[in-house]
């Protein structure tokens, strides 16, 4: 297994700067997920690591060696494509073994690796089928199998599960995690699905517009998003945001706007605050407590506009002076739409962002 280090990477495609001065350090054996909205340059980054896209400037190191201009096959990587990219004219076995045959790997060795991968992915009965006769999930596994047999030090995955149904996705997610344990390879995994990202990543990089917004463990990113974008992109529903201002009042720090005010004294500011400050307060739906609207202190009322039952929990959508606030309730208590309800914010679990720069305070 090898580490992957990207330094000041810049990539232009057809005149667009798709990636701008990007740095990323992936440790050997680590499972890193790149998460970001569609079109943010995730695939581009991955393909440039694989050597399929020429970099405009910057360096890519794999296993300590500068591989910026090395041939894809010499980088010790394997890549699972977003669209599978299975060879349509070859059967499953041939698909997996194609690369090995090219490299002149001995026959027995090929057979060994293919059977190991097909065992791992339960592809045994499908080995003689052509891709056209496989279901989406099966194709996906073949694509992964093709990567596995390469026994590469670094494995790259480009949204490998995006075309599958929820159940299959859950299963394969677990299998991938398992795989990582078994193989111990460095894995870089691209997705726009946060559940995947959260569950798979040891560390994850949230990207937007070709720039890494935050690179940390999933928990840290979830709990302490570095900026507004990360805050809203993660979570389902995303973080609730309230615009307002923050001010020291005596030894307390108070967030307030037209409709509410909150003591945020316990908040671990990165830098001490001075004076009044435009800011945005964010709180996750699960950190909102609801109760009866009886006019108590630090309790705000809003009307329920929608209740989404999710099985395990329900999502409440509250209409709070025109903005939708989401809350999650676990218990079976009866909640009716269009009725008023009180909600309170767990002030220990909030995030605060600068109003102008949108960065975490």
């Amino acid at each position: 297994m090898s580490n992957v280090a990207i330094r000041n990477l810049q990539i232009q495609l057809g005149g667009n700067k798709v990636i701008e001065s990007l740095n990323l350090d992936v440790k050997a054996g680590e499972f890193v997920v790149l998460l970001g909205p569609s079109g943010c340059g995730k695939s581009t980054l991955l393909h440039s690591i694989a050597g399929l896209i020429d970099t405009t400037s910057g360096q890519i190191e794999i296993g300590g060696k500068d591989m910026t201009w090395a041939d894809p096959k010499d980088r010790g990587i394997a890549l699972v494509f977003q669209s599978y990219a299975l060879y349509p004219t070859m059967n499953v076995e041939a698909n997996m073994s194609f690369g090995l045959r090219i490299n002149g790997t001995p026959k027995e060795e090929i057979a060994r690796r293919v059977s190991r991968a097909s065992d791992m992915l339960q592809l045994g009965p499908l080995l003689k089928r052509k891709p056209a006769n496989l279901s989406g999930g099966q194709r996906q596994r073949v694509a992964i199998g093709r990567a596995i047999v390469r026994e590469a030090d670094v494995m790259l995955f480009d949204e490998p599960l995006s075309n599958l149904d929820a159940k299959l996705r859950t299963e394969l997610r677990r299998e991938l995690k398992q795989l990582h344990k078994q193989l111990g390879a460095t894995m870089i995994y691209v997705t726009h699905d946060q559940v995947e990202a959260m569950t798979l990543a040891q560390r994850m990089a949230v990207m937007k517009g070709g720039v890494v917004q935050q690179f940390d463990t999933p928990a840290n990113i979830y709990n302490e998003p570095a900026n507004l974008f990360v805050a809203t992109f993660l979570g389902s529903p995303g973080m609730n945001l309230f615009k307002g201002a923050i001010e020291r009042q005596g030894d307390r720090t108070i967030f307030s706007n037209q409709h509410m005010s909150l003591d945020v004294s316990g908040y671990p500011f990165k830098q001490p605050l001075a004076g009044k400050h435009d800011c945005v307060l964010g709180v996750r739906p699960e950190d909102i407590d609801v109760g009866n609207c009886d006019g108590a202190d630090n309790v705000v009322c809003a009307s329920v506009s929608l209740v989404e039952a999710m099985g395990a929990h329900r999502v409440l959508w509250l209409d709070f002076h025109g903005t939708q606030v989401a809350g999650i309730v676990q218990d079976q208590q009866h909640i009716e739409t269009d009725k008023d309800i009180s909600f309170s914010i767990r002030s220990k679990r909030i995030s605060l962002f600068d109003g102008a720069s949108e960065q975490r305070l």
Partner: protein
Amino acid sequence: MAPPPVRRRKLAWTPARVGVYGFLIVAALFFLLPLYVMLITSVKPMEEIRLGTLFALPVKATLEPWLQAWSSACTGLECGGIRSGFWNSVAIVVPSTILSIAIGAVNGYALSFWRPRGAGVLFAILMMGAFIPVQVMVYPLVRVLASVNLFSSLPGIVLIHTIFGMPVMTLLFRNYYAGLPMELFKAARIDGGGFWRIFLQLMLPMSTPVIVVAVIMQVTGIWNDFLLGLVFAGSEHLPMTVQLNNIINTTTGERLYNVNMAATILTSLVPLALYFISGRWFVRGIASGAVKG
């Protein structure tokens, strides 16, 4: 309470359906008309043809013209019909088709996936070249081939067909490969495939539909070519069409229209057979469309 069930829509003979068949039949008749005239002319004796009753069925049908066209029509001193050129044509068509398609495919593949520097410019000039009348190029090409000792030889004519087929073949394959997912190529690159490996083991097996189209176009074109064969093939390899042309095109000699028509149909049989055979492949290739992997 249930309203009367609307009748099944599947039953075919709606007015629209009749219209479709009407149009197709009329079009087919239009397309078949010349063939019809050719066929009946080819079985009429010359006396009937001189009467000028073009569409009339023959009064005294005869197969004589066909026999004559095949085995005894004169093409100069030789009166052996068009039969003798058949194998020459085959000997030209087979390697020319293979070579021109192979080179077109390689070009298209390189242009679509590898994009070597300057290839785009070469391709642009090549496409420009497709617009030069062939005849203009003959004289200089004779010089070039003569200088490498290939003039008047089988390799020479094969080379010439390859050269003239290159623009369209390259265009065809380039467009086809441009429609394949780039990921496929990238996957093969990661698997360590080099230029030829990827081409031979991956791209070529996927190219059936376009190869069918290319074969149809090349076989038709090369088989029907007469000018290039005449100039470049050398007297031992003259294609069938030279004989056909000799039979049909006389300046001052008498013209046997029935034999001409029979000879024409005979000469076209190979491409026609190809259409019949490849038609199914053609559609299947088309139907499978962009190969979904």
